[in-house]
Each structure stands twice: as C-alpha cells, then as structure tokens.
C-alpha cells in the first residue's frame, strides 16, 4: 500500500519539472553529440600522431592528385580533364570516369578556408576530410536511430559508430578515399528516407533526393541504396503497410534521384540502363499500381471492387507477361546481363575468380574470414541479434527498414571484405537500439525498486509491505511486456523479480554493470584497432627491434628519386598497384594504374613482367618506357612485394596473351 503512495507523491513535482528536465536533456544530448563528434574525429588522428600528416595507401593518392588539380585549375577544367600522365599512351578522361563527390567536397572545403584567408594546404585538407566526415556520419547515425527508436538509442548508436573499427579502418586521417564521405552520405540518405516515411513531408523527400545525389557523386556503393530502399518499399507493400507517406518517400526519390544521378558523368545513362537500377523502376511501377488500387478501392463499393479486380488482374497479367518478356530479352542481349563485374560478383561470389582475375586479385574483394568480423565490429556482432529483436517490438516502418538493412548488409559483407564497411553502420544502429532498450528496462526496474525500498523503511507495517511489494512487482510485470522486455537478460531478471521482492534492483544493477562492461571493453578494442591496426599509412613502414624503432621509407625514396632525377616526360612502368602513387608522388607518366579500366593494357605489362629479358625489353620499348619500378621486399622481409604479386601478373597476362601459362611458372612438386 505504502509504496505506490510515496511514488505517486513524488509524481507532481516531477511533472512540474518536466519542461526543465526536457530542456536539460536537450542540452545534455547536444553536448553528448558534440563529444561524440570530437571522439570520432580524434580517435582517427592516431595515424597523424604516430606517423605524420600524410596521404595513405594507393587510391587516396589518386584522389589527392585530382583534388590538387581541382584546387589549381577550377571546376570547369576539372570536368574536362584529360589526364595524359597515366595509361600511356591511351590516357584517361578523369572528369568523366571519377566519382567526384570526395574531390569536390575537399576542394570546396579548401576553397572556403582559403577565401577566409586560412591558407591550409590541399594536403592538410585531404588528410583531415575523413575524420571530419566520420564525425558527421556519427551525427547522421544519431538522427537515423532517433527516427527509429528514440533519442537514447540514437546517442548509443552514434557513440558506437564513432569508434567502430570497421569504419575507422577506412577513415583514419590520411585515408582520403571515397568511402570516407560515402558512409556519411549513405547514413544521411537513409535518415532522410526514414524521416520522410515518418512525416510524409515533400520537403524531406526532396532533401532525400539531394542526399542520394551526393551519395551517387561519392561512391559506386550508391547502388546499395537504390536497391535497398525499393526492397523496403516492397516489404511495406507486401506486409500491408502502404500509406501516402510511403509513396511520398519513394516516388520523388526515384524520379528526382535518377535525374540527378544521371547528371554525374561517371554514371550518366547507366542510371537508367544497367540492371542495378531496374529494381527501383519495377517497384516504382508497383507502388503506383498499389496506390491506384487503393484509390479505386476508396471510390468503389466492395462488390464493384471485386469485379474490377478480376477484370484488371486478367488483363494486367497478360500485359505484364509481355513487358517482362521484352525486358528479359533486352537484358539478355547484353553479355553480362546488364550487370557490372563487381555487382555480379556480389550476386555470385565465385563469379570474379572464374572470369575476372583483375577483380579477384584485389585483397579487399575477397570474402572475409570469421576473425575479421570480430576484429571489425567486435562486440556489436553479439548485440546485433538483440537489436533485431528489439526492432520487432513493435515493428514500425522505420524499424523494419533497419532490419532489412542489417540483413542485406550482412550478406554483402560476407561476399566482400570491403563491404564490411556497409555492415558497420547497420550493426551500430541495431546494437545501439539493443543497448538502449536494455538500459531502459534495467533503469526502469531500478527506479521502481528504489522508491519501493525507501518507502519500506519509512513504513514498517510488516504484513502490508509484503503485499504491496507483491502488487508492486505485479505492476512492474504488467508494465514490462508492453515495452520491450523480451530481451534475454531482462527476462532473466524478471524471473528473479518474481521470486524475491528485493532482488530485481540488485540484479538489474549487476546486469547493468555487465551491459556497461560490453561497450567499455569494446571501446578498448576499438582504440587498440585505431592505434595499432588501422593507422599505418602503408607507404611508411615501421618495425620495432631491440635497438629501437626502424622506419622504412623506401617507397617514398624511390618516388622522390624519380621525381627529381628523371625527365618530366619519362615513362615509368610498374605493376598497376603503384600507378597512382607514381603519378601523384613522382609526377611521372605511368603505363597502368589502380583504375584497372583496361584489362589488355594491364595484361601487356603483366606479360612484360613475366617474359624473359629480351621479350620484356621489346614490350617496354614499344611503350616508350624508360624506367621500370619493381618492389623487392626480400632484404627487409616486406611481404607484399612484386614477387608476391607475381602469380597475378602471370594470370592476368595469360588471360589476354595465351603464350603465358601459369604452370610454366610453378615448380612441379612431383619431380
């Protein structure tokens, strides 16, 4: 009896303080978000502190070079840039073959800073673009998760995303790659889609298309969006969740988004011609049919409606069959069935290794191993199932989207290591939901128990207390299932609650501590991953031995030598891995580079590399090559040198020039 009384007595004061509490909560969550942003930025600075402010790896060097060009020559020159320093003698039209999002972003930042008389170098801007955008990405995650499951889940998900190793691996300072801004664009597009779905506002629908446009500008992974959203729309329609909001969320996106996507030169008419986009158009038709049916249903009586349905279905089926037949014929007429090689290898994981060795030769296109899941998303891997369950309680349009997102991204990450990056935000969102829901449950039970315990000390009516405790736990019980108490841990605690009146509080506290320990432990792992595993720029190698730190700077030594001691127009041949770096760091013309758009050209270099000296000289001479760059790691024990890549040269060369046969280069073990 006593317990509810005191708890209710506390209620009015609480309610009058509510506005204050809300304001305080708003300020608090603003500061939490700010700190999350700071953390997301600063955790990625290990590479700068441990090494230096330098561009990493291979592709970023190309992006850096393009950004330099943009900063120097302006946007119009950039669109028309024909680069004769690469793919000699073919050259490459950079403006038309590059995803310009990242370059334009960094170029704009640089221009903005310089017009404010803050003369930062292009390199500095490029190095710090990725950390800045990962802060943006964590804020976008907050917005998205907030739309799905409220502020608490949003903050948790944002904090998790700020330090998830998988994302860190692609966005440390210096890792100036498309993914750096694309993940932000991806999450933000999803957020705007969910926001439109929740509000039904055309304003957000337009913003959504623009965000989608930015994503198309940034990364080839935009096809993921344009397939996932139609899938979700289809799911909503099938499960009877069609509404005008859904229509507004989807139809403008397809129309505006496709038009905008076609503006990006690298996509162009692919936006309507390749199979990656067909799903969206199909769903676009379906949603109109469904909308039309709903409309007809509204104006006809049920009986008339039935008649109309039978009529339309019989005619419609025939038409559909005809249309589908035409479509299939069109698609089948193209050799790859309208799918690009990378997309096909997503649908059929064995495709690349069978047909396109150049895609298979890239390590980040291999399927991941189990440890890499633990390495890259760590504890989130265990929280994701709980989060998926939480999404079903109750299932809304938004939470069904999250479930679909995680399910598809898990599949894709299983095909290619690189797409682990798409999984990371989904895992963070679901884990954030799981954690925050679990906290809700535990803090809820602690709150009730605390008030109960305090009242027990006040009123010592021995017999009434037991009954009130009983009734109170009942109240807790009745409250729980309404919420989301079906998490495994909370169920356990609930059982305990039934047995003993006092237990739940301590139990919940213990569980809460255990739950807190999870993200804490994982944050230790994340910081370790950021500091040790993912911060190496890969152009500078360090090794620790008994007499201190050794720095191997041989790559840059070679590039610097080429830069200063060869003629400006000399041609340098190397395996394609080093193409971007040679053009960017040595400023010399290369034969092939990491763009790998011309397989024959690469095969020519591969053939030269795997031919005897005289034949190789002939080939290189025909390409005007004056210098050949080969990487030999034997002396210092650097594993990924050209000897290690040699079999791929043979395979790729042999793919075009049949006189190169792989068995000739292998030692027969039988002899």
């Amino acid at each position, binding site marked *: *009896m*006593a317990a*509810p*009384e005191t708890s*209710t*007595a506390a*209620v*009015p004061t609480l*309610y*009058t303080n*509510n506005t204050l509490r809300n304001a305080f909560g708003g300020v608090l969550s603003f500061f939490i978000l700010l700190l999350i942003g700071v953390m997301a930025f600063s955790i990625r600075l290990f590479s700068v502190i441990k090494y*230096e402010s*330098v561009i990493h790896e291979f592709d970023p060097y190309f992006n850096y070079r393009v950004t330099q060009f943009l900063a120097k020559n302006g946007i119009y020159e950039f669109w028309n840039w024909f680069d004769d320093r690469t793919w000699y003698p073919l050259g490459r039209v950079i403006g038309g073959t590059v995803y310009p999002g990242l370059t334009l972003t960094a170029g704009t930042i640089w221009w903005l800073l310089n017009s*404010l*008389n*803050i*003369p930062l170098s292009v390199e500095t801007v490029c190095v710090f673009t990725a950390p800045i955008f990962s802060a943006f990405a964590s804020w976008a995650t907050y917005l998205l998760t907030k739309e799905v499951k409220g502020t608490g889940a949003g903050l948790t998900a944002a904090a998790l995303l700020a330090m998830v190793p998988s994302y860190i691996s692609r966005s440390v300072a210096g890792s100036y790659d498309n993914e750096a801004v694309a993940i932000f664009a991806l999450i933000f597009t999803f957020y705007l889609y969910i926001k439109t779905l929740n509000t039904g506002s055309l304003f957000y629908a337009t913003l959504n298309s623009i965000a989608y446009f930015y994503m198309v500008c940034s990364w080839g992974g935009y096809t993921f969006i344009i397939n996932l959203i139609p899938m979700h729309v289809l799911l909503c329609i099938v499960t009877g969740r069609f509404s005008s909001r859904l229509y507004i969320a989807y139809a403008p996106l397809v129309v505006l988004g496709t038009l905008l996507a076609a503006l990006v030169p690298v996509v162009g008419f692919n936006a309507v011609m390749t199979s990656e986009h067909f799903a969206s158009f199909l769903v676009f038709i379906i949603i109109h049919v469904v909308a039309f049916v709903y409309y007809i249903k509204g104006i006809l009586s049920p009986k008339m409606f039935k008649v109309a349905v039978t009529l339309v279905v019989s005619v419609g089926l025939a038409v559909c069959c005809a249309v589908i037949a035409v479509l299939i014929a069109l698609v089948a007429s193209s050799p790859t069935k309208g799918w690009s090689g990378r997309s096909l290898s997503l649908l059929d994981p064995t495709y690349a290794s069978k047909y396109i060795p150049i895609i298979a030769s890239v390590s980040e296109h291999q399927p991941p191993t189990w440890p890499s899941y633990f390495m890259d998303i760590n504890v989130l891997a265990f929280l994701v199932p709980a989060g998926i369950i939480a999404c079903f309680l109750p299932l809304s349009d938004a939470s069904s989207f999250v479930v679909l997102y995680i399910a598809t991204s898990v599949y894709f990450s299983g095909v290619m290591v690189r797409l682990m990056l798409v999984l990371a935000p989904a895992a963070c969102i679901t884990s954030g939901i799981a954690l925050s829901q679990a906290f809700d449950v535990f803090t809820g039970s602690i709150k009730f128990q605390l008030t109960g315990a305090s009242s027990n000390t006040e009123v010592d009516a021995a*017999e*009434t207390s037991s*009954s009130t405790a009983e*009734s*109170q736990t*009942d*109240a807790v019980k*009745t*409250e729980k299932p*309404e919420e989301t108490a079906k998490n495994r841990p909370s169920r356990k605690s609930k059982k305990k609650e039934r047995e003993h009146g006092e237990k739940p509080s301590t139990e919940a506290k213990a569980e809460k501590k255990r739950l807190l320990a999870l993200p804490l432990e994982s944050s230790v792992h994340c910081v370790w991953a950021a500091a040790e595993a993912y911060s190496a720029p890969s*152009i*500078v190698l360090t090794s620790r031995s008994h007499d201190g730190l050794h*720095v191997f*700077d041989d790559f*840059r*030594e070679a*590039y*610097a*030598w080429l*830069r*200063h*001691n060869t003629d400006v127009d000399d041609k340098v041949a190397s395996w394609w891995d080093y193409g971007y770096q040679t053009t960017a*760091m040595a400023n010399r013309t290369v034969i092939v580079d990491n763009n790998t758009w011309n397989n024959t050209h690469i095969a020519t270099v591969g053939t030269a590399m795997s031919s005897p000296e005289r034949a190789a000289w002939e080939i290189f001479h025909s390409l005007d090559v004056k210098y050949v760059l080969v990487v030999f790691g034997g*002396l210092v024990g650097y594993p990924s040198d050209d000897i290690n890549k040699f079999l791929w040269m043979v395979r790729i060369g042999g793919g075009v020039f049949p006189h190169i046969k792989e068995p000739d280069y292998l030692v027969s073990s039988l002899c």
Partner: protein
Amino acid sequence: MGISRFVLLVFTISMLASPALSDLVLSKVDRRIYLTSHIVRISSTLEVENAGPETVSKVLLAFPDLQAQNLAYLMASPHEAKAKVKVSVVSFPIDVVKPEDMPPGVTFYSVSLPQGLTVGASFTFDVLAVFTQALRPMPEQIGQADIQLVLYQDSAYYLSPYVVKVQSLSLKVPDSRIESYTTLQSTKVQGSEIKYGPYENLPAFSSSPITVHFENNLPFAIAQELVREIEISHWGNVLVTEHYKLIHGGAQSKGEFSRLEPQARENVQGPSAVRYLVAHLPPRAHSVYYRDAIGNISTSHLRGDSKKTELLIEPRYPMFGGWRTAFTIGYGLPLQDCLYESEGRRFLNITFSSPMIELVIDTLIVKVVLPEGSSDISVAAPFFMKQWQETKISHLDIVGRAVVVLEKTNLVPEHNQYFQVYYKFNRLSMLREPLMLISGIFFFFVACIVYMHADTSISKFSASYLAKQQWEEVRVAIQQVHNIICRCLATHDKLEASLRDLSRTGEVQACKAARKSTDGLLKELSKELKPLMTFLQSSPSAVQVLSKVEELVAKEKELLEKLMAKHSTAVEAYEKKSGARDIENRIALQQQKITALRQEVDDLLEFIDEI
C-alpha cells in the same frame, strides 16, 4: 683542358703587356689556398709599401676574369697575428673598378685603406677571396664506387698590378692522395700541403700557371635555389622556413647504380655522395621539421646545447654526382632572440643565408614577412643585394602582410651574416585578429538568436501556418489538462494520506473532513477541465490525441471513483471498529484495481507529456 689553356693564354697576354702602374710596391705576399672542400678559399696577407711621392689610400686587387666570375666573396681586413684573440674584424670597403691602361682579361677590385698611406710607410692587411666552382672534376664522370678527382688551376705568382718583392704560395688539399701537380723551381710537398716559392722581385702581372690534380671526396652540395621565409609573429615566435633545391655539383655519376651497396658498405661505396648535410641553427631553435613535397623525411638528427642547435639531415637517398633533390626545413625561434627595439622602431636581427655548413647557394631569396600593420620598413645589410616588397595574405589577414624580399646570387657560408629589417608596428594591431574572431563568433550567435526568434513563414494565412498555430493552441490546452490531472492525482494522494492517518490514529472525523475538502477541490478541478475538453473536441488538429486525452480523463474519473469507494469502506470499517486485518482484506481487492488504474493513468500522462 680547354679552360686551362685559355687561362694560360690570358696569363701570357697579361705578362706581355705589363705596364708598371703606380708607386705602390708589395713588399711581401703570403698566399694560402684552401682546397679542402668544394669551396676554394684564398687567404692572402699583403704588405703594401708606398714608394711614390704621394699619399695613397687605395690598393688594387687583380683577379683574372675566369676566376672573378666565380668569386663569391671578397673581404679585406687588417692583419692580425695568429695568437691574438679575434677582435671584431673591421673589413675595408671594396669596389669593382676599371682603371685605364690595364690589360684585358683582368678584373680589379680596389680596397680603401683606413687611412692614407704616406710616403715610405707600409701597411699589412689580409684579403680573403672565396670562389665557387673553381674545382673541376676530372674525370667528369665516375662510377658509383670510384673516388672523385678534381683539378685546380691558378698561378704560382701573385697576380698584381704592382711589383711584388717577396712572395710565397701554399696549397692545402684534403688528407688524401695528390694525383699530380705542376713542378716549378722551389716546389715542396709536405703531407697535404704543396708549397711554391719564395719568389723574389717579380714584375707586375707576372704569372706562372700551376695545376693540381687531387682527390676530393667531400660532398659538392649546391643549392640551386634557396627560398628562406622568415615570418615574425609578435605573439612570440619567429618562424623560419627554408626551401632547398639541391644538386650534387661534383663528378657526374655514370653506369649502373645500386642502392644496396652504399647501404651495406657505407665507407667504400660512393665516397663522394652527399649523404648528409649539417645545419647549425640558433641555440634556442624549436619545432624543427624536415620534409618535402611528399611528406616527412625520417632521417634526421637534432642535437642541442646552450650555444647551438645542430641539425643533421640526410636526403631521402644518397646523392651521387649530378643528382637532385628538393626539401624544406623549418624551425621556430623565440622572438626575444631576434627582435629588438630602438628609437621607437623594431628591428629583426637574423642571419642572412642558410645555416648549412659548406653549402654553395646559386640563388638565394630571403622573404621577411612582417606582421600585418607594419610600416616604415627599411633593410640594413652588410652587402649589396636586390630587394623589393610584396604582400602576402596569410591566416586571417585583411590587407595582407608586408614582405621584404631580398635576392642574391652565388653565396658561400661567409655570407651568413646578420642583417636587420627595421619597421614600425603598433602593439594594438596584435589584437586585431583575436577581436575579429570574437566578433565573428559573436555575430554568428546573434544571427542564430535572431533566426530562432524571428517568424520566417512567408504567409500568415497559409494552411500550414494556421495548422501550426492551432497545433500550438492544442498543445497549450493539453498541457493544461495535464496539469489539472496532476493536481487531481495530488488530491488523490491527500485522500490516501488521510486514510493512513486514520489507520494510525483512528480519528474518523478528521478523515471525513479531509474527504470533504478534497471533494470540493476535485469539483473545482473538473469544472476547470470542462472548457478545455470542449475546446479540444472542437479543434480539428487535436483529433490524433483527443482519444488519448479522453481516455485519460475517463481513467482518472474511474480511479477517483474507486478511491472514493475504498475511502468509504475504510471509514465505514473504522466506524464499525472492525479489526485491522478485516479492513485490510476488504480494501485489498480495491487496492489492486487502484494500483492498476493508477499505472494506466501514469502511462497516459507520460504519453501526453511527450506531445
């Protein structure tokens, strides 16, 4: 040998046409030529005697044109005995002159003596001449492991427009082998020193060519271009940035090159390669960095003590003959070490040239970036150089900073002297940039506040605007309902409290009184609730929440009824003096319902509160 023949020719010409110039006689000439690095230093001690009728105040120094082209530095100073402590060396002014009746192919410099040389008097002074590119590699191309041999040509006799009475010459070569040297009368070799002379009573412009061919493996580091930028910040730092374009000016490298060999056998392979450079920075230099266009160069060492900071840098690769590289070093200096004030003006006192030792610089550009708002700028330098002014726009500048640009070609370490830049600067200008930032942020916040408080909707009659306003009204009404319900709940609590008192004290009357008062209160509250409910029911934008609000009100009513019933039963039971257990049993059932209802009401309240 083309050049040497030419030199020979020049000498013969000059020997043939040798008019005795004036009345000065060089009674003693001592020349020491230092060939120990790639910079050739000729230090001569001259004793001048006035044998004529007039007082003479100028002495002419002669250099053949081919040498004069490479002459980087020339200084004359009073002679000092070796043991003496170096007093501040006063150098005499030197000018290029073209006296008449002189043989072609010779360049003259005139030294102004501190005071006129009277008849019969003599005066001794030192002349230091520093030459670049005076050593010619021979052979011109060498392999990676070969040693570098160089050729030096000069005259065994001192070239002078005056008669030289006694003279001697010594050449100092590095401590290694001498391939060959010209043998004249009285030539001696002592270790690494070759001595010619003494020769006596030679006429003016007499010369006798000599050639020394010797090993010189010291690095021939030449900076083709060096841009030094010295940026003054009155917040306490002078930032020096030096951009080098370096070339190895020795014998060209030929044939194959192996990177592994110099790494494995450092002393044997590539003896003439530029492996490292040493820079002597000022003692309190800090924040030193060393990088190039593609990032840090990790091979450098920094040692420091109270007198100097020594920076040893290695280029990315050992530089063989003819190889190039480019890099940047930078460091900061404390402001008080280089900036002083005099007569209302400030002046920067800093070294002119590169801190690298034994580095020849072809073109040096020094840019002194003064803080924004400096005026009345002037430069005081120990030697002639081109100078002009620029502006540079840097961090948060509006009009840009004044930049003094100085340019000079063909420099040797002797040029590394202090120079001064005078300017006027108002201390208040320092606050300009912080104030600008503060005001910028301030106006940003003001703009935010204005934006948040301004009504930016375009039409006051648009549907969405009206809907928004209506929704605001509805929200206010709901808030009021919320408050009222809360107060109702508070009165419920009073009832409960009275019941508790009853169970403790057993005073039925007090309990009844409490009930009456609460009844009154509740009636008032329900009266207040009515207009709000009618408003909500009429408002179109409240449709979504209306059901919840109505439910809340209904539940609250139900709760109230139950509570009243419980209250009545309790009071009745007390009036009948039933046992506590009996009362408990009666109430228990009602109590359960009440708690359930209460829970529902709380949930609803929370829901409504979230709107």
